[in-house]
């Protein structure tokens, strides 16, 4: 477990900036995740106190939204679209290809925490399905070959 106290200055800086904005919980969580890579559990009591909420309320919001992570992210994040448009263009096969090639477990993670494959529902790229985001960058019109190529480049640390 990483030392979560490391993230306290970041958390407090964000809270000081945002706590008086109406309805600021989501912006706060986004900012913490952006800065720390995830929402450390140590953030929960801090947020609760600053926003005058119970810890359960804060926890409830974090768990409701698919975007928020409570553990540190893998080095590379692949977000493959599995909504209807991409399915109709074979995104299911691409998922299988990635799982096999990267030896991912049921939840899409590689054993060495290098890669995590996540499912998303629509990236707004449906006119050129199938689509996937690799480390925040969108790619569309994917084919098995193109996917292989992109993933290789990503793992070799080139811009992807």
């Amino acid at each position, binding site marked *: 477990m990483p030392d979560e106290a490391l993230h306290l200055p970041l958390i407090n800086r964000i809270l000081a900036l945002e706590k008086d904005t*109406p*309805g*600021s*919980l*989501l*912006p706060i*969580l*986004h900012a913490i995740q952006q800065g720390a890579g995830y929402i450390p559990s140590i953030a929960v009591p801090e947020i609760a106190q600053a*926003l005058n909420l119970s810890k359960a309320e804060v926890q*409830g*919001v974090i768990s*409701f*939204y*698919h*975007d*928020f992570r409570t553990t540190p992210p893998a080095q590379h994040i692949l977000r493959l679209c599995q*909504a*209807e*448009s*991409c*399915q*109709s*263009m074979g995104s299911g096969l691409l998922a299988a290809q990635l799982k096999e090639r990267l030896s991912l477990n049921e939840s899409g993670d590689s054993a060495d925490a290098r890669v995590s494959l996540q499912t*998303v*529902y*629509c*990236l*707004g*790229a*449906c*006119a*050129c*399905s199938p*689509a996937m985001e690799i480390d*925040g960058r*969108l*790619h*569309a*019109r994917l084919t098995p070959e193109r996917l292989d190529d992109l993933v290789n480049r990503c793992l070799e640390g080139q811009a992807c």
Partner: protein
Amino acid sequence: MLKLFIPCDSLARAVGADEVATALTREAQLRGLPLELQRTSSRGLYWLEPMLEVESANGRLGFGPVTCADVPSLLDALTAGSNEHPRALGLVEDIAYLKSQQRLLFARAGITRPLSLDDYLAHAGFKGLEQSIKMDGADVVAAVLDSGLRGRGGAAFPAGIKWRTVRDAQAVQKYIVCNADEGDSGTFADRMLMEGDPFLLIEGMTIAGLAVGASKGYIYVRSEYPDAINTLNNALEIARQAGYLGTDICASAQPFDIEVRVGAGAYICGEETALLESLEGKRGTVRPKPPLPALEGLFGLPTLVHNVLTLTSVPVIMARGAQYYRDFGMGRSLGTMPFQLAGNVRYGGLVERAFGLSLRELIEGYGGGTASGLPLKAAQVGGPLGAWIPPAHFDTPLDYEALAGIGAMLGHGGVVVADESLNMAQMARFALQFCAEESCGKCTPCRIGSTRGVEVVERLIASTAPAAREEQAQLLWDLCDTLQYGSLCALGGMTSYPVSSALKHFPADFGMATTEATQ
């Protein structure tokens, strides 16, 4: 000097627009060729992206889809003053797909630079706001009512009625909320406008704010659209600097400002009351109605919630008149609709047309049939909660009432095309699984019934005896009923559409004879 245009739209970039732009600049430098390269919005002719446009005396010439490998030969042709090239498309405005459209909202698409206020103003930008500021708010509301504009987010409720309700409400503070959660598969029109023409949304929201007496607006954008979020934030700052937002809008002494808020990957937050909860910093659970958001919305105050396309229709209506707008369309579906062609389709892209063209015209005419070349099987219209429509019904006009007449809905205008290889039993299963994953958890049929539904579909597909299949099919029909009538919102309520339409029209995919499934 050569003047070139390449989109900065996120989907154009996802298929290589940045690389082509870089290659063009580098190659021109090597050749000592002076060149101006502008990054514009996208025309929405996505099968041609990355599309390069070149200024000429007769208008812009198009080339696409362009790859980096095309760059040297393209520059050869262009410097020789020739348009002969394997990627040449001729005059962009003459491309049939585009020429036959009626672009009111997307009038600037592919032409202007998203963050250039000068470009926006040079192409009729802020004309609607100028007009509105001279009018009494009640007259602006009357114009929206007269235009026949209906909400483009899905429910198609007359916009003007909502405006009147919010305007007539008495409160210290009212809000305009733009629903930019665009979660439906097959849709990207909101994204295109936010990335490509952000000032149009700002203009629409400002007109709405002044008309109903709201001084604060929020745009709730899904987190899957990082480019839209960036562009909007930059555009807001530019608009503030230029006096289009702030305490004194265009010297009218009226205040209005807008803040962008980012969603967090929950489909249900597209539902307006869940969206309001989310904006308040809570879990995105659906609120019962009444109270209507128009009376008790964000933080309990009167709130006008509209989709991006509804709000961006308003500047056109105000600039050109309600009559001009309502002259497009048919029946009670007036104006134009940006249809979005997606999935297994040859020519995917944006088609803005008056309501009333047929699904066939859209899918076969514009779309050119399937991308795979295999026979067309069905199209899902209106997102994940929309029905799968078989080709036998493709002559239905795209109009809210006509689609309702065949047990379908237009929703946000997305059309996902499928060829014969897509298994409809799997799609029914997926619809139920999606409902289970995205349910806000308030209603039992939606939260639990959906998971049971996944199991029923699996058992149905696996059964070998006709009697067992019959039993499972009956269970599935019953479940559809329960979902439809026992849900607080359309996520549970309309998940029955893709499921029952799949079962009804494609029983063979469930291993059933045609007669077994028809009820």
